[in-house]
């Protein structure tokens, strides 16, 4: 940590550049879409917002229809057999990643000779023609709200990013898709749509960023009514900013990067940075109880939300004031948060904002083993001095992160790397197959950050931790942004995988990590997987009473006739193992349809009954019929 202050400033600015880089609007403008002026406008928003929207109505124009993220950004092996990341959007874009090939071959037994390319173009004839409720369509037409039954639009909104969903798309298999997509541009549009849907008994599925990993967006195949995907992406304005109370009132369709960028223009931020923030939407965060990387400073979504407006078949639900806390019976926000689109559409949210932090700094600590690392995180949590983000990666994930190091330009850097490695493994006696790394992100006043940094490093030292530089830290966070892109690369070469998460009391963290990882390995073996799987975890959030643990799991499926089924069985077993070891059903991914079967044991019979009775009251005809949760 010997960098001088100007160095730090440089790095801080660099970081800000990266974030803005992440969030830059795409070059190809979308003027035609901006035309959708909200007809039901009551008050003029006092913040300029219709400028610079990232998400066009036709998302497939800038995003992959059968994979993660932007069409122009992806990993591939170039003609020399080296991995590279295309495009210009990310820090990694345009760079060669020399170690990735070896890592993929070594970890999965994958080989460049064995390719499994995806179907390149959506075969629209494979898409079921829409079953349309004509009366509904007619009335919608008369409202002037834009809608579409174009197959591409519909297919794009029929899935999230679960492995089985993407795998099916890559194979060109299309199941039940929405019959129609509709783009409201304000709260009142939504009110109209919901009224009409009730009137004509049409099924509505709200669609925000489409980054769900819980099968929440899958259309129930048994649904016979017209399914309308309600795409909130055009409700994306910041309606006002209240600097006295530090709140902002925002339309719920705004996606994370736009929200952050627009607030930054006014000198503010929400600080809510889930890994999916490039694409996920505010409404989606509320509906799934999302959690951000920097929750230690800013809080999770439930801490950030001050006021929510949701349109339900019974009408609009909202609180009557913006008091910071109330004792008024059960908090109605908690019916809304985590409702996963089963009760209505979140249209507007007032959320807390903060001034942009003066200073940001990455860091990392190497521990001799995972046990020591967990003990350190526990101590940091005990002393309540966690930085904005603190994550502990296990050895496998550390090596994974290492494999993503871009090609270094100077001999000097690679010499330095070698020296660092020598120091840690030879001089300090760390076993390179056991050591693990904690990545840190500090934020705030410069003074305080430096003070804070020292405090954390002092604690780490007590657990045998060695400071390992900002680079390692930063790369750790980059991993979470590109991991979803990497999955697409894996899928090109017989490797399938996914991540899943849980939260667990402190005393069980080590046990759950060990047991779930071992269970994955054992299940893969039992299910006939021919190659040892990648089974790795990180402790990704700390709380007073426990931690959030994130697992990555992937394997090479060559030789399996039904890889997705095997994958699902293993994931199922891993979830059982999590529950048996005292972990929760989900920390922030939500339940969707993927984890419904465990809801009863998770919230008890009575708990499930309570949720059900709310659903029965709010939406007796199951208009919001995505069948999540219950």
């Amino acid at each position, binding site marked *: 940590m010997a960098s001088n202050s100007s160095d730090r400033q440089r790095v801080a600015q660099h970081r800000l550049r990266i974030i803005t880089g992440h969030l830059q609007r795409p070059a190809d403008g979308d003027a035609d879409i901006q035309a959708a002026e909200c007809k039901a406008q009551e008050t003029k928003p006092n913040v300029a917002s219709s400028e610079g929207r990232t998400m066009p109505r036709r998302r497939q124009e800038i995003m992959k229809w059968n994979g993660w993220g932007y069409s122009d950004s992806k990993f591939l092996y170039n003609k020399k057999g080296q991995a590279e990341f295309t495009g210009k959007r990310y820090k990694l874009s345009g760079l060669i990643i020399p170690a990735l090939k070896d890592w993929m071959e070594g970890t999965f037994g994958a080989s460049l000779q064995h390719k499994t390319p995806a179907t390149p173009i959506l075969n629209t004839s494979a898409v079921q023609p829409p079953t349309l409720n004509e009366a509904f369509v007619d009335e919608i037409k008369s409202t002037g709200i834009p809608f579409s039954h174009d197959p591409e639009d519909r297919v794009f909104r029929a899935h999230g990013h679960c492995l089985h969903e993407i795998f099916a798309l890559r194979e060109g298999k299309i199941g039940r898709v929405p019959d129609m997509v509709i783009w409201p541009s304000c709260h009142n549009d939504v009110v109209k749509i919901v009224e009409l849907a009730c009137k004509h008994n049409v099924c509505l599925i709200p669609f925000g960023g489409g980054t769900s990993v819980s099968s929440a967006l899958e259309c129930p195949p048994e649904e016979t009514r017209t399914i309308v995907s309600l795409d909130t992406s055009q409700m994306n304005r910041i309606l006002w900013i209240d600097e006295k109370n530090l709140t902002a009132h925002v339309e719920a369709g705004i996606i994370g990067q736009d929200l952050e960028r627009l607030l930054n223009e006014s000198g503010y931020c929400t600080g809510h940075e889930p890994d999916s923030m490039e694409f996920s939407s505010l409404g989606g965060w509320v509906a799934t109880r999302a959690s951000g990387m920097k929750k230690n400073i800013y809080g999770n979504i439930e801490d950030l939300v001050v006021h929510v407006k949701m349109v339900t078949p019974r009408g609009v639900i909202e609180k009557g004031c913006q008091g910071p806390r109330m004792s008024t019976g059960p908090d109605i926000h908690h019916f809304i948060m985590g409702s996963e689109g089963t009760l209505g559409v979140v249209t507007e949210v007032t959320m807390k904002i903060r001034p942009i932090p003066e200073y940001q700094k990455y860091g990392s600590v190497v521990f001799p083993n995972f046990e020591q690392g967990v003990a350190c995180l526990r101590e940091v949590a005990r002393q309540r001095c966690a930085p904005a983000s603190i994550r502990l990666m296990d050895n496998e994930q550390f090596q994974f992160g290492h494999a993503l190091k871009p090609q270094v330009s100077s001999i000097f850097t690679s010499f330095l790397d070698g020296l660092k490695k020598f120091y840690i493994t030879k001089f300090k006696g760390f076993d390179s197959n056991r050591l693990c790394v904690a990545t840190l992100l500090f934020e705030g006043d410069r003074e305080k950050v430096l003070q804070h940094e020292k405090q954390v490093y002092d604690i780490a030292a007590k657990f045998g931790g060695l400071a390992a530089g900002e680079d390692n830290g930063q790369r750790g966070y980059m991993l979470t942004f590109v991991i979803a892109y990497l999955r697409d690369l894996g899928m090109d070469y017989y490797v399938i995988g996914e991540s899943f998460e849980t939260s667990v009391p402190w*005393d*069980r963290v080590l*046990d*759950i990590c060990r*047991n779930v990882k071992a269970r994955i390995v054992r299940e893969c073996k039992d299910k006939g997987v021919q190659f040892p799987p990648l089974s790795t975890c990180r402790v990704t959030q700390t709380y007073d009473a426990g931690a959030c643990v994130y697992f990555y799991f992937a394997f090479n499926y060559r030789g399996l006739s039904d890889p997705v089924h095997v994958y699902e069985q293993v994931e199922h077993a891993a979830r059982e193992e999590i*529950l*048996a*070891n*005292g972990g929760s059903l989900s920390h922030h991914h939500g339940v969707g349809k993927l984890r419904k079967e465990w809801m009863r*044991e998770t919230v008890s019979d009575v708990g499930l009954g309570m949720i059900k009775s709310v659903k029965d009251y709010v939406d007796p005809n199951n208009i919001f019929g995505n069948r999540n949760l219950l």
Partner: protein
Amino acid sequence: MASKAVYLHRDPMLKKRDDFEDILEERRRSSDLRYALRCYTPLLYKGLTPFRADELKTMVLQSDQLQYVINQVSKQTSVTADEVEAEAAAILEEMAHHLQISTIRFFAFVLSKVFKTLFRSVCVNEEGVQRLQQAIQEHPVVLLPSHRSYMDFLLMSYILYTYDLPLPVIAAGMDFMGMKIVGEMLRMSGAFFIRRSFGGDKLYWAVFSEYVRVMVKIGFAPVEFFLEGTRSRTAKSLTPKLGLLNIVMEPFLKGELFDVSLVPVSISYERVLEEVLYARELLGVPKPKESTSGLFKARKVLSEDYGSIHVYFGQPVSVRSLAEGRVNRSQFNLMPRHIPRKPGEEVQSFVNDSAYRLVRAQEENMVLKPWVLLAVLLLQDQAAGDGRGTSLDELTERAVWLRDLCRQFGAFLHWPDHMIPSQVVSSSLSLHRGLVRISEGRVQLALDQGAEARRPLGAATPEEELLNRAVIVLSCASYRNQALHVFIRPALLASAIQTASSNQKQDVYNSFSFLRNMFSNEFILSPGAAVQDFEEACYLLVKSGALQINQQEVLVTETGQKTLTFLTSSLDPFLQGYQMVCRFLCEEASEGLTEKRFVPAIRKFIVQHLLTGRLRHAEVLSSDLQKNALAALLRLGAVRKLRGRGEEQLEVNKVMVNSLEDTLGGNLPTQKAVVARL
């Protein structure tokens, strides 16, 4: 039928078993000293962080579990926590092993000499050893040998040393500690000592359980203990004790370990060193206290031939797979795991079923020698016979018949097929010449020989003569008992067919289930597995051609009568014994009978019956049988313990005991007996 998962129905004939290698062969050819000093580098558990024995103690004392109990005890007794901790440390000191490689080397040397003198061979299934080696690296391992002799744990450590496997730490009874030097030597070879009873002592239990748990959790070394709790004096497997099994399974159930491997080990002796000692003990001659000088006196055993030993390392059983679908592990989620809690019903029944399954796994891999079959036949003849014995030819012929039956029932029989049967028989008889007498080509038990040998002076009273004969009978019975697990289910079925009111399947099942229930303290019959046992018995008897079973009826075939008669008479001593116990309780039990006075009192009663010739089976004198019968009656509620002043008294429900006796004797159809449905 809760335990369906535990007992998979399978064809016993298909049981594949490994071959044996004699480890003494090598010892007879090369230097014992070099063997004792050779390089010993076992492959250890992959997750092990090495600890010294004293670090282990600190870990135990500092553990959350123990600290919690220390604080609790301190609060309850108003002794300071430091003092309680000191007490805990003292308990640990008394208990802990002090495994040292030098001691092991010493034992390796001495035992090589001893084994070569005593035994013809020590045979080990090497594939089992390889499996064990694999298991040790993967997960913490618990070794569960059968317990027939003091030799058992020395032998186990010796074998593990021989195969370069990590040496086990062994739970041993405190009685060994009395043997001054030997106790310490055993401690240094990995034994840790536990008190036989510590009922209410919370602190002791906490120290002990935490000590074992820590060793399992860190995979310090394979933990070894005897499921049966003590040496079986009768060579029948004893009903398993659950305490230690509970402890070693807990780290898995609470998620502290991914898995634990349980490895049943079957040690079969052709002749047990303690053979006669056991018989006398069962007859009420008290067991000598273990002492070093006693051990030296026992060295005369060194001059005898004890045949061979077979050690079979069974298939490692994963606790995880045992618990799959049986135990909901999330029950431990809502309370800190270090707070001691009595295991819930689900866990208890799981541990119990697992224990039975493991003991059965031990039984299945016990090697049976031809002599065992001869003992079965000779005992039956003795009970039925006229005292003239059986001709050698007839014995051979029946032994061959029994051999085939055994094989059909899946027994692990070591019958040398390359020898002609008469040779097999005569060589078996000669190894056990202390127990049999052959004259004029007729064989019988050497009942009077025993008297001569043991009472050289003067004429004995009829009672003493009887006891001397009983020593021989019980010694012989201990061989027969080795084979009983093969026959027990078919034998129960055979007896049930005999006593059932009809040959309706349901009636036969009722009788079967009554008998099974009655004898479940006597034999390894897993609680709640009556249906499976019945099906297994039916399957075996149908397969051997003795029965035909259709939808409703159970029919004995013409050729099956012989099998059924054989089976019922092998159960006969037990049936009669239990009836005697019932009769005693009805006729003789006075007010104020205690459990302590029960055995001497009933012994007197039985001696009377034997002397007057009303009872033929001298083995009913076995205190083991009497205690088991009492335990069964207590379990069934026919006898109750009354808490009075001083000792607990036994209160006999005479109507019920009487009806049980009648049912056992086949005088009452089971379904009418009230007790049958208990």
